[in-house]
């Protein structure tokens, strides 16, 4: 995935804008990780999230 200036902050605000709260986002990551771990990793990399934080997100 090439990166066209998409960041975690922008993504989170996008999700907040459509009414997703923290709990729903956590649930979303969990579903993503359980069903498609590799794609979850790719997606987080696409958001330019540092490796350390990616493991944190994927671990929860």
């Amino acid at each position, binding site marked *: 995935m*090439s990166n066209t200036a998409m960041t975690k902050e922008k993504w989170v605000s*996008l999700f907040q804008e459509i009414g997703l709260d923290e709990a729903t986002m956590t*649930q*979303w990551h969990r579903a993503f990780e359980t069903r498609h771990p590799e794609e979850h990793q790719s997606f987080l990399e*696409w958001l330019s999230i540092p*490796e350390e934080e990616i493991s944190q997100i994927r671990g929860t």
Partner: protein
Amino acid sequence: MHTIGRVARKYSVSRSTLIYYHSIGVLVPSGRSSSNYREYSDSDLRRMDRIQLFRSAGLSLDSIVMLLGKKGDELNATLEGRLSSINGEIQALRDQQKIILKILEKESAIRGTRVLTKKIWVSILEAAGLDDAAMENWHIEFEKTSPEAHQDFLETLGISDAEIARIRDRSKAFAH
């Protein structure tokens, strides 16, 4: 003490590999037998264990020679460097994967790869409780706040150009 043949068998490497390791100083046998054959001590074997471990992490022999004499911090820095170069290689492979999929343009080719598809994406959004209306909103907001990233993201899902144009036009129309 262990002979070169025994060490080679134990680590599934050839004798010439061990002779090469000796010549470049990565693994120098501690002893010589009376007939001048190489002899490896237990501590040589422990060093070989680490060499094998670093080799399987894809590190070059040059880096390994450096690493073996180092403490935790420097070791971590080198391994992190290797990790980031692996990430770079993965990225390059993903780009190639994307190009091949584009050439093939077959749904069957997409299955069994690690590409994030529209189907997977939608199923995950649904799992988080998003309905069609929420997804529609998401496109509208995405288009409004980051139009280029919206295009890029839809491309990574393998959606056709025509469908991307439809989605973005619809999102723009609702944006006011």
